[in-house]
């Protein structure tokens, strides 16, 4: 079994769910068939703050085919508000008459058809008592507070204020990132069906057990009476991680109309009925000596959240440990506005917080007249500067060096605005990427059948991460089978529990559980073999027996076919269920997952090492000399990892993350009306994500790395790190191209005119 002591990149493997995906056979939640469904359509608030005085429903009820209209007046007591996955309080929907934010669910129309439900929903007339809302930073009425210590910590090492004051070179700047929405192409859908008091929910989810456990609490029923099915998820990026308000109301609706109820919410509703990435502000102070050695680092962040929520991402937990520095001070503030509660969105802390640090580093390099890579080399460290713990592995400079060579970084002209090709100004930028190596508790069941095939069953999540294939590869490797011999079932609470597919922990978490179950099978076969007289292993050491090539193999070339060994364990298939609780998690971690809570070991809160994935990212931008459109002809990311299970899908993950980052730097921004506190570009024609023509060369280098401690299989997550350095790499490249330093994202034409 390969482990982290030697880097191991597996063979590129075509996804086992690929055929289902290219033929349309893959069933996403809203593709699941239910008998005679009624259709739900949500009605959402058109004000951001106030109360509902009442509803005029006559017109809506008169629409042919309308079966029911749910409002707080008739169902308010039937469900409790959902608990956010990140903990803390959140806003209400139909539990009361209160409006907390724009686009809040205030009614659900149920009808015979989608068309009738939509028509009636448009005819629901709420009467409001309006109050003036607060939209965001700087709006009247927002409440700012220092983030309470809880899940996240601040760091104070040395005397950062004094060291900054005394520094020879200083960068003292403010940066900002906008509101962003996940906008997976799959809409937020929910189908609920009650049968004999049991509820089945088809909903795209990054955590089916979480959905089950939390929905059970909301509906005040036992979790065992709910089944959640989510076999394929059409993009998630954090938006389908925690439970949101809609699910319980659709369940209530289905109970009321005594039929399955199907909801396919609209694209604009997706901006307000789930979470989003909150806008952030940053104040960065870097102090350095003339050689570029950092002497002071201060990072203060501000994050918007809803009125009742304490949600924050506190990416200072990462920025405090990127560069060696004897004096560190971090602080995070939250700003309450009349908004829905934000939540995880791809690289939740690192995305918005690494951007200002990596821009500031570029600004410092420019002030020092130093190559930005050299500045990072001077401040590289193998010791976590915030805690003094060693990094489990940190190949940052190897990533920079390999990436720089491949990117031809040396061709960069350090003079800003001085390189022009035809009508286009050309610039290069780079940045560090880092993402905590997390791993959660998970269980899995593996079954070996006499025909030499295996079945893996686990309530894990296929969200584009290639989970089906990763587990087939893992099981095949552990059991000595071909990938084609392994069938994988995911996304169903009838299967053994797995945790949240987020925080780039999923592959690590579920692979370890499956590997453990496979090892259980190996052990059962081995134990039976050593006890059998007709076995070549009789009387041997079961631990010395391995599975490969459809056979048991032992010392001295002893071998026995899998079929023969399996027959010895009894009639029929051999089934093993295993749990894996990673080091550092409490013994009840698995039980927590089953109940629907998060149980994840974080790379920055371990007591033995600090575990992070690192990478270096490079971008070439072109800015039209006259009209100032910014385009990215070339990007390269070099990422270090001890183990890559499927390099084919891993490449796609890294690449996709990088392209996401290009979009985040140049396009993505949810516009909010400053007076009404309502989103205005709540569609994907005006909330811009990259299209095919925006993307040209995107190269990914996977850098093998030795790591004996991150986890037994040596798996660092890859789903999020790809975006982390891109914001800054693009912004730094724009500075190199134009001499214009844009500190508020996204960088648009008007910033460069």
């Amino acid at each position, binding site marked *: 079994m390969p482990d982290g002591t030697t880097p191991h990149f597996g063979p590129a493997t075509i996804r086992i769910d690929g055929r289902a995906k290219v033929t349309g056979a893959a069933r996403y939640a809203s593709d699941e068939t239910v008998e005679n469904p009624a259709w739900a359509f949500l009605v959402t608030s*058109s004000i951001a703050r106030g109360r509902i005085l009442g509803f005029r429903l006559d017109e809506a009820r008169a629409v042919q085919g309308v079966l029911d209209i749910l409002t707080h007046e008739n169902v308010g007591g039937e469900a409790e508000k959902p608990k956010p996955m990140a903990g803390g309080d959140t806003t209400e929907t139909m539990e009361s008459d209160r409006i907390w934010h724009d686009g809040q669910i205030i009614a659900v129309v149920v009808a015979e058809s989608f068309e009738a439900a939509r028509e009636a929903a448009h005819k629901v007339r709420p009467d409001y008592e309006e109050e003036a809302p607060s939209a965001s930073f700087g709006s009247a009425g927002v409440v700012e507070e220092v983030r309470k210590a809880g899940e996240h910590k601040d760091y104070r090492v040395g005397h950062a204020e004094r060291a900054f004051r005394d520094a020879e070179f200083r960068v003292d700047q403010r940066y900002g990132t906008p509101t962003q929405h996940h906008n997976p192409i799959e809409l937020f859908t929910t189908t609920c069906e009650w049968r004999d008091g049991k509820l089945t929910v088809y909903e795209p989810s990054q955590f089916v057990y979480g959905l089950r456990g939390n929905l059970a609490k909301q509906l005040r029923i036992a979790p065992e009476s709910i089944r959640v099915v989510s076999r394929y998820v059409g993009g998630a990026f954090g938006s389908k991680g925690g439970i949101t308000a809609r699910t319980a109301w659709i369940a209530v609706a289905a109970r009321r109309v005594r039929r399955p109820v199907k909801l396919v919410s609209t694209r604009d509703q997706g901006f307000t009925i789930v979470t989003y990435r909150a806008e952030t502000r940053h104040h960065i102070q870097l102090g350095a000596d003339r050689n570029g050695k950092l002497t002071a680092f201060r990072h203060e962040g501000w994050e918007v959240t809803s009125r009742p929520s304490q949600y924050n991402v506190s990416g200072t937990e990462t920025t405090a440990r990127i560069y060696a520095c004897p004096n560190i001070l971090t602080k995070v503030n939250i700003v309450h506005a009349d908004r829905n509660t934000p939540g995880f969105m791809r690289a939740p802390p690192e995305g918005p917080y690494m951007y200002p640090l990596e821009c500031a580093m570029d600004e410092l390099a420019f002030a020092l007249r130093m190559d930005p890579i050299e500045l990072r080399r001077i401040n590289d460290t193998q010791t976590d500067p915030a805690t003094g713990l060693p990094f489990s592995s940190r190949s940052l400079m190897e990533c920079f060096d390999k990436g720089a060579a491949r990117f031809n970084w040396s061709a960069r002209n350090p003079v800003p605005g001085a390189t022009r090709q035809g009508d286009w100004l050309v610039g290069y930028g780079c940045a560090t990427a880092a993402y905590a190596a997390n791993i959660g508790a998970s269980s899995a069941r593996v079954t070996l059948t006499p025909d030499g095939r295996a079945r893996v069953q686990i309530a894990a999540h296929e969200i584009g991460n290639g989970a089906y294939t990763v587990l087939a590869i893992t099981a095949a490797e552990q059991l000595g089978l071909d990938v084609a011999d392994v069938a994988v079932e995911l996304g169903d609470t009838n299967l053994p529990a797995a945790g949240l597919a987020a925080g780039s922990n999923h592959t690590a978490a579920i692979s370890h559980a499956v590997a453990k179950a496979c090892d259980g099978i190996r052990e059962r076969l081995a134990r039976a073999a050593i006890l059998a007289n007709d076995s070549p292993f009789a009387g041997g050491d079961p631990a010395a027996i391995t599975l490969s090539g459809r056979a048991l193999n032992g010392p001295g070339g002893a071998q026995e076919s899998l079929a023969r060994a399996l027959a010895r364990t009894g009639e029929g298939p051999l089934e093993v269920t295993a749990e894996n609780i990673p080091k550092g998690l409490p013994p009840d971690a698995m039980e927590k997952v089953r109940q629907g809570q998060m149980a994840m070991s974080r790379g920055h809160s371990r007591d033995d090492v600090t575990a992070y994935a690192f990478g270096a990212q490079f971008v070439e931008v072109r800015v039209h000399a006259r009209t100032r459109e910014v385009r990215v002809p070339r990007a390269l990311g070099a990422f270090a990892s001890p183990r890559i299970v499927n390099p084919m899908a891993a490449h796609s993950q890294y690449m996709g993350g990088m392209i996401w980052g290009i979009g985040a730097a140049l396009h993505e921004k949810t*516009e909010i*009306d400053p007076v009404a506190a309502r989103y205005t570009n*709540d569609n994907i024609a005006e909330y*811009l994500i990259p299209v095919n*023509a925006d993307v040209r060369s995107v190269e990914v280098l996977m850098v093998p790395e030795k790591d004996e401690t991150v986890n037994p299989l040596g798996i660092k997550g890859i789903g999020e790190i790809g975006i982390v350095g891109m914001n800054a790499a693009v912004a730094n490249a724009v500075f190199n191209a134009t001499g214009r330093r844009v500190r508020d994202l996204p960088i*648009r034409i008007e910033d460069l005119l």
Partner: protein
Amino acid sequence: MRPFTYERPDATREALKAAAAHAAPPGEGRIRAPAHYLAGGTNLLDLMKIGVAHPSALINIGPLHTEHGRIEASVEGLALGALVRMAEAQEHPAILRDYPVIAQTLQLAANQQLRNMASLAGNVLQRTRCNYFRDPSWRACNKREPGTGCAALEGNNRHLAVLGVSDHCIAHYPGDFANALAALGADVSILALDGTARRIPFEELHRLPGDTPHVETALQPGELITGFHVPAGPWTRRSLYVKVRDRESFAFATASAAVALHIEAGEVREARIGLGGLAAKPWRAREAEAALRGRRLDEHTAQEAAEVAFCGAVTHSENGFKPELGRRTLVRALLQAAEMEA
């Protein structure tokens, strides 16, 4: 979306008859008429789904493609049937050769799926992307509900117009193709309900918002556009479209310029300029054209023309950059056109 009756007449006469059967409110223009013609559906179904348009009757004029689906190029100019699909025109050899600006406005619009569906007339009649107009839950929109105000004035107006706006509406015209038609001085052919044909300058088809932003065109309820006529001219070959947008493709123009030039002996004899993404309607910049006539086209004169084009611009909270971007876009287009071989 409210239920509607659906008809699919086979001939123009029947289509007009079907439209005539639905009484229209007087003086409100065609937008609020109860009967709508359905061609590609790419804008109409959009507006119906989001609750902005509520026709009670749809008259599918798809079958009329046989009557109004021709592209004819002659010495007099280019005749484009109203039901020619965008994708059909975008690569027509005569258009590519003699009217490149038209081909480019089509190629750079929307995406191939939409261009396969959308008719030229439907494209020309597409409605603003102002998000306050497109979401009926905003109460203040004079274009959607006359007299309710304009939320965009103090709102997110980055995309909205700076030319031709009024205190009642700053919505922009979002299309591309229409800017070429405006620049080239096209005419539009219209059939009235009673079958009477008329032909008006394309520039008169769209109206400025003034104090009636809900009346967007000169069309009366039930009137049907049957085609466009682009006069030939020595400027049409030296023509192009520059579309500046936030992303590389499948995005509306932040600013655009359709230009056509007749240059002889190094001097501009005739310049035609249409501006997109910047104005309340497809915009012809006649003063800028005049500023170029009889002069050499260089950075300096292009700049002067661009200044003239935007001297009447009115900006709001978030679109203050648009006159400058518009000027630069126009200069870029003019200088690029001057370099064309024509």
